[in-house]
């Protein structure tokens, strides 16, 4: 777990260094069948006050990435390498006790399933207060008052009374609100939300997403939102990172990725989702096949076995060469990892657009 060979970047432009800087993060799990490369060279940056959406299907490595940011792979068999710099501090090599002092205070997390993430044996208030007491020298009473205040902030009715309730007495939406209260109780600088609304109904999902966005605006923290639903990130994220087979395949602003997607996998995701507006006669265009094995990932581009457009690339390069994540010409920082040339992509998009219109 201590692959500290990567050279430290020159600390010359400290002022310009991003708040969160993840470089070439790799998380590998040795198993009997071989090494599972859940995350295989992921890099991104995030500034305070902005939101990054990490999108991918199950097994694309998005949750494993978030666990690595929290240092939750420490003490497991996972092999983590690469760099995670949070406010100039390297986290991958940080010992567990130092990580503990950051966890919950500087970095905190909202989990997908609040029923299993909350302890059934303790009251909601006690769990929120504990998170506060771990990091602050306060009395029990003060911590409890803080818990009530947080519950009120996230919109739990009668917080004075509900603070004494157990998680099972809360509804699904309220439990997720309690999780958010717990995550925000120490004013973290980085908040990671791993599929925070997947288990919720659509009207409650809208409330929770708006709540995360509004709270972020107030607290000015950085947010990473992990989801499989491109719709969820469209409204609240600033940047989107699309992952496939543990690697980045497209990275850019929300507008770039959703309006001018460049990678065939992103096209596939967008075309396989029916929209609430638009043509009902248009047939969905699913991505053929199923997600790749992470033990023996396909050679070259991990997506090539499912890609409709690999024939457009000469000499079968897709199966041999792994495409680098390069800037899309004419954009500031819209990156895509695909061998298709910009001209070919343009031609394909024109064709699919006319095909859809017919």
């Amino acid at each position, binding site marked *: 777990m201590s692959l500290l060979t990567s050279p430290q970047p020159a600390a010359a432009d400290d002022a310009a260094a991003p708040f969160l800087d993840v470089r070439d993060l790799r998380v590998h799990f040795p198993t009997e069948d071989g090494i599972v490369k859940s995350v295989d060279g992921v890099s991104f940056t995030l500034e305070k006050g902005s939101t990054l959406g990490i999108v991918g299907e199950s097994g694309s490595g998005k949750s494993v990435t978030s666990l690595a940011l929290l240092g939750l792979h420490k003490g497991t068999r996972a092999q983590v390498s690469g760099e995670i710099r949070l406010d100039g501090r390297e986290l991958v090599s940080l010992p567990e006790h130092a990580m503990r002092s950051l966890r919950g205070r500087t970095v905190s997390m909202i989990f997908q399933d609040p029923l299993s993430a909350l302890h059934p044996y303790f009251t909601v208030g006690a769990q929120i207060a504990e998170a506060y007491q771990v990091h602050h020298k306060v009395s029990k009473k003060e911590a409890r008052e803080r818990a009530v205040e947080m519950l009120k902030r996230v919109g739990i009715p009668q917080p004075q009374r509900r603070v004494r309730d157990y998680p099972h007495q809360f509804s699904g939406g309220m439990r997720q609100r309690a999780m958010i209260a717990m995550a925000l109780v120490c004013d973290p600088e980085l908040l990671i939300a791993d599929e925070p609304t997947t288990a919720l109904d659509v009207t409650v999902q809208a409330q929770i997403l708006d709540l995360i966005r509004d709270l972020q605006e107030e607290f000015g923290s950085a947010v990473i939102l992990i989801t*499989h639903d491109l719709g969820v990130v469209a409204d609240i994220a600033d940047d989107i990172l699309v992952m496939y087979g543990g690697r980045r395949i497209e990275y850019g602003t929300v507008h770039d990725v959703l309006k001018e997607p460049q990678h065939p996998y992103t096209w596939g995701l967008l075309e396989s989702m*029916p929209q609430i507006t638009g043509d009902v006669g248009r047939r969905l265009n*699913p991505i053929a096949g199923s997600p790749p094995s992470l033990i023996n990932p396909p050679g070259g581009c991990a997506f090539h076995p499912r890609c409709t457009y690999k024939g457009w690339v000469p000499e079968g390069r897709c199966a041999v060469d792994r495409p680098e994540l390069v800037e899309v010409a004419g954009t500031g920082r819209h990156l895509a990892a695909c061998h298709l040339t910009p001209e070919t992509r343009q031609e394909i998009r024109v064709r699919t657009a006319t095909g859809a219109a017919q």
Partner: protein
Amino acid sequence: MSTTQPAAGEHLLEVSGLTKHFPIRRGIVFQRQIGAVHAVDGIDFTVGAGQSLGLVGESGCGKSTTGRLITRLLEPTAGKVVFDGEDITHTPENRMKEARRNLQMIFQDPYSSLNPRHTVGTIVETPMRLNDINPPQGHKKRAQELLETVGLNPEHYNRYPNEFSGGQRQRIGIARALALRPKLIVADEPVSALDVSIQAQIVNLLQDLQRELGIAFVFIAHDLAVVRHFCERVAVMYLGKIVEVADRQTLYTGPRHPYTHALLSAVPEADPDAVHRRERIRLAGDVPSPVDPPSGCRFRTRCWKAQERCATEEPPLVRLGGNAEGHLTACHFPEEPSVEARAEDIVLDPALTTLEDNASAAS
């Protein structure tokens, strides 16, 4: 696929006043009933041959219970289910077999709905054997044909469900439902357990089957976009009642019931500009308990238009003035038929209101 509305009496499935109350009992030896969960509380709808009806709503609205009542996996408390001209509301279990020949179901969870100890072949053949159907080509050949129809390799006949992925298992479930050439399939959240790209494969498969075989569908889902894509007619349920039903075009562009507005407004769309085009309605809290549903209109506790009348008088599901034929709404104070952005957002959630007021005061 015929889109013409069948005349009255031609409906394949007619449901009227369908009700299911699950009793809540207390006591160990002498159990007494202390209440009931009003899962489905008097709903009416019809499905024509070859048509598809979507049932949407949030968890606890009774959509899955409705599906199970139609297929008689649950015994209705009251009401009537007429399938293919025959009243099957209280048909004894031993005679349901015949009705179920034409009435099949696809389940949500592809993991628990297949017996792990049976091979795929056995799973697909069993409905035929149980109904003494002997296809001329033999059971095995027919099962392999079905596997091919749903896009699986016929050579996988002897494999077990655990050897397949979620999407493939759902295909096995579909092959089993097709084995008897049913007239109606009740699909209960058939794609919600699957990844986005796999979802699209299954939706396309179901659409092809519907077109080629002329099967009618009752499609139950919480994903409004998928339902819009698949169903010609859509019914919105809330706490055991249908609050609005219309053809998809009308329902998604000109809904009248406030709940339909709130539901549509909450659907996330993968288009960063859509946010400003569409109305924004954020309800407060969660759906109330179906054990003790609100009096009158059940949505009134979360509705921004609720008045006294809503608490005392239950709004009937009727065609309102200005509504197209077949567009029924149960509301005393309906909304304008538009989903365009409003001058002022409707935000009922107290936390959101506070935060947004603070933000606008600061700026």
